[in-house]
């Protein structure tokens, strides 16, 4: 032991020679090697550190081995195993035991029979063996000889070519060989026959056994399959255990990461696009596998499939599979436990993820729609976002599977976290922003309830209706080229009074609870709970000054055309009846009161009490208080005269009708609104606010001087202009002096990709919404947007901001659902790039369709019509389906394009259903717009726009047969065939219960040639609940149609027709009967007859039946006068209230005085 001594190189080298001094044979015991350190201790250190390292390695292996996703896979295998075992038990129970037993007996019997005749069997077997030997030999001889023949042929050919001396010998050899081969072939044939005969003899013994074995295998196929499946999923099987062992699991583990690579749907990693690699299925195991649906989805799906079966939408050969699938779904519904995520099948496999769907997993992956970190395999890192605070709280708990806690942490650096569940459909927008209607392929008639994609469609429609695009630029096709959502204000003085306007702007909802005009003033950040009392009073004065200023500006700049008064007083009762019958209520609602469906109480209506279409026009409530008879009269006669871009169409009202409706609308008064307290503008507030603006460009002294030179009204007008600029009123309304200005709001085109830190959450975590509900703000983008649109000024809470720096977004008083839909659109608008082949509806045909759909949405066609299977809001008001406007779903295939063009331009060219009281309005479509609509309908039906069938002249014989069929089917019981004036056909006697069906002489110019027979065959499939009966019902057995005339032609009732028809069939009764049972032939004959009686031309489109009223005269510039505001009951002092208009009628009309 030389502990403590320093080790030196010399010490060692010095001793070394000593070791070898005595040579190799020295027996002298070796001296221990001298060490400068204690060896045993060192050994111990090495041993422990080696062990430590080994342990660390073990830990590393273990850490690498134990992954969260593996647990999900193991669990899924367990679910699968459970299910397969259950199915196996069921299959074994269901197995036809008797049959299997009979087969076993058959095998046994035959084995016994063979044993009984053992000798015979052995002889036969021996003979077969001998024959097999002979056959083998003969076959070999023949093959060898054939090979030699090829050689001989070559030799003979070569010798011949080279003119060799032995060429004759070679030729002989070749011929001899040919003969030998032929002989051998004959022998082989004979031997083969012998062998086959011997085989047959043996088979006589074995055939029964073989057959029975084959049948057994068929019967057990299902069980065998399940057993095999069980082998792969049962982790306890040795091979599965071995493959998944740590360190060995690199070879071919059964638990492994699953991924799909998507080169078209790249991930943008700044300056570079890399392919998306989705690993979601690593845990979401059953995402593309049917059979693991939730109970809810299983119920939905089985109902849908059943309906498809019932309505003949499933091909005959697929009916069986569909029935099996329904049975599977029923089993899922009856199972004791619901399958939970992440092991569920994706809903709607026919649309998403499924390999036959529009979005197969291998092409679209998961994160391209859902967002999230594509390559992550851990719950938190993948970018799961909790949809609500409650779930967030649960997710955050330490990993505890039983409580579904995943140890989730918010990851602020994830650039594209997933959309929370309520915004899933935001993912659609990336590729579908070119569409008005996202999903038109799902048949609404068979899909019960909401169709996938309806939410996005409705969300985009909501954004359109509220006009979000007007203040916030959205540069996608869907939200460009739209009109300004608000009414034109360049003629406001012709329509209403400043007194009304001031009150309206202060709080539009006080006038109409359903209005879409948002509230700009007296909002949360001005008078809310966090505003100090002193500031609040000043804010109120400022807001009031701004309101008065805006009104002063609008009225100062307004035109003053004088509108002609209604020619007669009009009858309000008749007017009400007209409003309720001609179709006004398709777009307008006439009352603010509604009976609550749940509580049964009468309450103020909300927008979402009505379908979107009925919110298109304003609510009639109080319209008499807002405006005056002359304006209403002229507006309803021809809205375009007041404002050339007015969305309201003309209903071609007569003078009397317009007067009556005017009288009715004027009777809708809301006097209490005009009694609302309004203070006059506080001169100091006006002065200070105006000065604030002036100071931007001039010095304090100059500003003061300038203001001194201005009258109070001038100051108001100046402040008004500035305030309109500040609040962006011009974004939604046409206002003189603001033409061409950029919209006020933030551009939203890629708002969904904005990083989280760029959103100003202020100090808000929880707040009380104006509805009284407590809202929580989660730290993610959709939650920020949701709360922004729900309560636009909330992020100013507890902030110290100057008056003009406060948030200005107005309050739309959105319901939770409306806010959700709008959030969905905004969150969905991302900068994600998508290869063009992945963008929806990009082909020429679909572009035409979408252009048309955009117009359908803009003009609110769905208020009256069903288009693409949805719409017809007016149906809620008309109980008798006989009097509903037509369903346009099949319109493209139904109507000829020239007719459609004419009719859309001018609906007076033809009255198809003269009994309807609802009128097709004249929309004043220009040619381009009309073409867009016509092209849309035709393309949607995949029908040509123009064709030659219109001039088709059916042969006389077809017409004659058609006429008889027409009589026999009694079509004339409903359809008239008498010639009529297409513009004004007689109205049938409705009271007399006459069935109402279009006059058939109008069919030829209107309907497509090929559509008529198709319609007669299957009307209910084209328009469900049509009154047109199916005269040729479906034949379930053949898949075709049954004809009612098949047997009936021989009945005495049709003797006359039979006699008339026979000559056309060469007096061949058989042929006649065959035709009478052929639905396709009969309907073609019917069409030919209908074609033959039709008119051939219709009047070209004219003015659309709208009487063009002479333009109102422009009066000479109104005499400058003090503004109406000052004329109105003057407030006594600032802050002191005075009801305006108490006991006074609104000022007389026309000729409102502007403020000047």
């Amino acid at each position, binding site marked *: 032991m030389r502990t403590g001594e320093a080790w030196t190189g010399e010490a060692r080298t010095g001793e070394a020679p000593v070791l070898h001094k005595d040579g190799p044979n020295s027996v002298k015991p070796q001296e221990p090697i001298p060490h400068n350190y204690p060896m045993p201790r060192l050994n111990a250190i090495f041993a422990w550190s080696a062990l430590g390292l080994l342990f660390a390695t073990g830990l590393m292996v273990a850490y690498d081995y134990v992954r969260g996703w593996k647990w999900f896979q193991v669990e899924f295998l367990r679910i699968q195993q459970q299910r397969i075992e259950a199915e196996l038990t069921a299959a074994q129970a269901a197995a036809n035991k008797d049959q299997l037993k009979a087969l076993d007996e058959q095998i046994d019997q035959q084995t016994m029979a063979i044993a009984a005749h053992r000798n015979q069997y052995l002889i036969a077997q021996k003979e077969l063996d001998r024959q097999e030997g002979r056959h083998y030999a003969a076959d070999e001889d023949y093959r060898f000889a054939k090979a030699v023949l090829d050689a001989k042929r070559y030799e003979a050919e070569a010798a011949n070519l080279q003119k060799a001396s032995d060429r004759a010998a070679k030729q002989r050899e070749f011929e001899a060989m040919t003969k030998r081969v032929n002989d051998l072939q004959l022998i082989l044939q004979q031997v083969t026959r012998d062998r086959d005969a011997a085989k047959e003899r043996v088979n006589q013994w074995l055939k029964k056994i073989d057959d029975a074995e084959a049948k057994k295998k068929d019967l057990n196929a299902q069980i065998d399959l399940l057993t095999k499946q069980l082998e792969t999923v049962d982790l306890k099987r040795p091979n599965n255990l071995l493959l998944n062992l740590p360190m060995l699991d690199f070879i071919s583990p059964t638990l492994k990461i699953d991924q799909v690579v998507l080169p078209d749907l790249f991930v943008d990693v700044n300056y570079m696009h890399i392919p998306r690699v989705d690993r979601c299925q690593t845990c979401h195991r059953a995402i593309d596998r049917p059979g693991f649906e939730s109970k809810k989805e299983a119920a939905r799906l089985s109902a849908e499939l059943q309906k498809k079966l019932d309505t003949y939408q499933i091909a005959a050969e697929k009916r069986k599979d569909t029935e099996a699938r329904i049975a599977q779904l029923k089993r899922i519904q009856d199972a*004791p436990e619901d399958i939970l995520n992440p092991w569920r099948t994706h809903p709607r496999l026919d649309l998403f993820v499924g390999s036959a769907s529009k979005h197969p997993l291998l092409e679209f992956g998961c994160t391209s729609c859902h967002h999230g970190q594509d390559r992550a395999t851990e719950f938190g890192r993948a970018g799961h976002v909790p949809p609500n605070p409650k779930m967030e709280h649960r997710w955050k708990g330490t990993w505890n599977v039983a*409580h*579904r806690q995943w140890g989730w942490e918010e990851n602020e650096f994830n650039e594209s976290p997933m959309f929370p569940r309520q915004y899933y459909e935001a993912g659609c927008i990336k590729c579908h922003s070119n569409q008005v209607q996202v999903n038109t392929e799902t048949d609404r008639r068979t899909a019960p309830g909401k169709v996938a994609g309806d939410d996005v469609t409705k969300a985009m429609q909501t954004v359109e209706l509220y006009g979000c695009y007007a203040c916030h630029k959205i540069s996608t096709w869907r939200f460009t080229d739209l009109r300004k959502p608000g009414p034109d204000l360049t003629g406001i003085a012709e329509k209403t009074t400043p007194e009304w306007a001031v009150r309206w702007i202060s709080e539009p909802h006080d006038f109409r609870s359903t209005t879409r005009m948002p509230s700009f003033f007296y909002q949360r950040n001005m008078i809310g709970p966090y505003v100090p009392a002193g500031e609040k009073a000043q804010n109120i004065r400022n807001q009031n000054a701004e309101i008065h200023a805006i009104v002063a500006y609008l009225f100062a700049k307004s035109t003053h055309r004088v509108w002609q008064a209604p020619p007669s007083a009009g009858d309000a009762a008749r007017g009400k009846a007209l409003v309720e019958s001609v179709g006004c209520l398709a777009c307008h609602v006439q009352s603010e009161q509604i009976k609550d469906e749940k509580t049964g109480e009468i309450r103020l209506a909300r927008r979402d009490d009505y379908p979107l279409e009925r919110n298109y026009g304003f609510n009639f409530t109080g319209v008499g208080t807002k405006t005056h008879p002359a304006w209403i009269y002229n507006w309803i006669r021809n809205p375009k005269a007041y404002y050339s871009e007015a969305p309201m169409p003309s209903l071609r009202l007569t003078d009397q009708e317009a007067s009556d409706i005017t009288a009715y609308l004027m009777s809708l008064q809301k006097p209490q609104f005009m009694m609302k307290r309004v203070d006059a503008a506080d001169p100091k507030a006006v002065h200070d606010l105006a000065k604030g603006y002036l100071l931007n460009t001039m010095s304090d002294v100059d500003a003061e001087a300038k203001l001194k030179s201005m009258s109070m009204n001038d100051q108001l007008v100046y402040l008004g202009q500035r305030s309109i600029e500040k609040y962006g009123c011009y974004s939604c309304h046409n206002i003189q002096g603001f033409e061409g200005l950029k919209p006020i709001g933030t551009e939203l085109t890629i708002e969904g990709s904005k990083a989280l830190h760029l959103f100003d959450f202020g100090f808000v975590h929880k707040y009380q919404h104006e509805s009284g509900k407590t809202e929580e703000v989660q730290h993610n983008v959709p939650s920020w947007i949701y709360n922004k649109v729900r309560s636009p000024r909330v992020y100013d809470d507890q902030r110290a901001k100057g008056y003009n720096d406060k948030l200005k977004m107005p309050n739309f008083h959105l319901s939770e659902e409306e806010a959700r839909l709008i959030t969905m659109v905004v969150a969905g608008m991302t900068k994600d790039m998508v290869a063009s082949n992945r963008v929806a509806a990009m082909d020429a045909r679909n572009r035409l369709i979408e252009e048309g759909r955009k117009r359908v949405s803009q003009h609110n066609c769905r208020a009256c019509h069903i288009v693409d299977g949805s719409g017809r809001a007016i149906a809620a008001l008309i109980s008798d389906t006989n009097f509903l406007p037509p369903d346009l779903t099949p319109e493209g295939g139904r109507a000829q394009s020239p007719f459609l063009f004419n009719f859309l331009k001018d609906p007076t060219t033809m009255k198809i259903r003269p009994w309807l009281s609802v009128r097709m309005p004249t929309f004043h479509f220009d040619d381009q717009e009309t073409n867009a609509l016509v092209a849309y309908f035709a393309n949607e039906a995949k029908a040509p726009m123009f064709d030659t069938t219109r001039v088709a002249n059916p042969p006389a014989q077809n017409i004659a047969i058609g006429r008889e069929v027409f009589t026999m089917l009694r079509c004339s019981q409903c359809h008239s065939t008498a010639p009529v004036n297409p513009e004004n056909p007689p109205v049938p006697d409705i009271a007399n*219960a006459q069935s109402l069906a279009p006059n058939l002489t109008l069919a030829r110019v209107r309907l497509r040639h090929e559509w008529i027979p198709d319609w007669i065959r299957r*009307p209910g499939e084209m328009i469900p609940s049509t009154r047109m009966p199916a005269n040729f019902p479906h034949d379930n057995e053949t898949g075709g149609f049954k004809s009612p005339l098949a047997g009936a032609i021989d*009945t005495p*009732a049709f003797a006359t027709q039979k006699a008339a028809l026979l000559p056309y069939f060469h007096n061949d009764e058989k042929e006649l009967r065959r035709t009478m049972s052929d639905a396709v032939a009969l309907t073609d004959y019917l069409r030919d007859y209908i074609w033959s009686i039709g008119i051939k031309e219709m009047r070209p489109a004219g003015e659309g039946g709208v009487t063009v009223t002479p333009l109102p005269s422009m009066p000479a510039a109104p005499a400058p006068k003090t503004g109406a505001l000052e004329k109105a009951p003057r407030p006594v002092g600032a802050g002191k209230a005075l009801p305006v208009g108490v006991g006074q009628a609104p000022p007389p009309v026309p000729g409102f005085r502007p403020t000047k």
Partner: protein
Amino acid sequence: MKKFVSLMFAATMVLAVACGKGKEAESKEEGEDDQAPQTASAPSTAGSAAPAATAAAAPVSADAATLAGTVKFEGAAPKMAAIQMGADPYCQSQHQTPVQDEEVVVGPAGELANVFVYIKNPPAGNYPAPAAPVTLDQKGCRYYPHVSGIQVGQKLSIKNDDATLHNVHAMPSVNSQFNEGQPVQGMVADKTFDKPEVTPFKIKCDVHGWMKSYMAVMPHPFYAVSAPDGKFTIANLPPGTYTLVAWHEKYGQQEQSITVAPKESKAVSFTFKG
């Protein structure tokens, strides 16, 4: 090396144990992703209740009781308008005297006809559809019967006895709608309904606006329609307590709870007020 192998073994064992524990946790695991786990047991109980409904068909027991009831109408019977059949001369020719609407048919002593009466909570059991079809006749441009019931899967034969066109437009809300034309006299169309729909739905003829009939699709045979004398009978009812529902096309529906003893012939009555 030996040490390494044994260590590896130990690690594997540890892992195996860990995995085993994981399994235990799995099997306990239940609870919908949306909900807290405590509240998630509801669906499973609902699931276990299901098989009870599919118990074997109950044969008509010797104890079966019979319900014999009457439906009365209280108040002045509304006068039904005479149907104008002028639109179709054939229909008019079939009737010598004007035909009354059948919406409310009240007898001389206030008996109410055409009331559909059924048991809302039938005794458990399978009720196969009877082989005999239900017929719906169109004769003289009227439907016979005006109100009827049919069992799920039972054949409905719709017959046109008129030499005019009728269309049979059935407007169920649960079952599939159909609308078929019957232009030929004597034509019969056969239909079945595959789902129960206990509130009667309308069947109408679009050609003749006055023609209306109502039909309910029942999952069991315990239903009846009151006759012109207001009487109805529901037979073969096993003893028990039931909710009896009476439905009228104009006056809506009423319910009453009844208890029948074995072999009892129970009298019940409903009264609709005008």
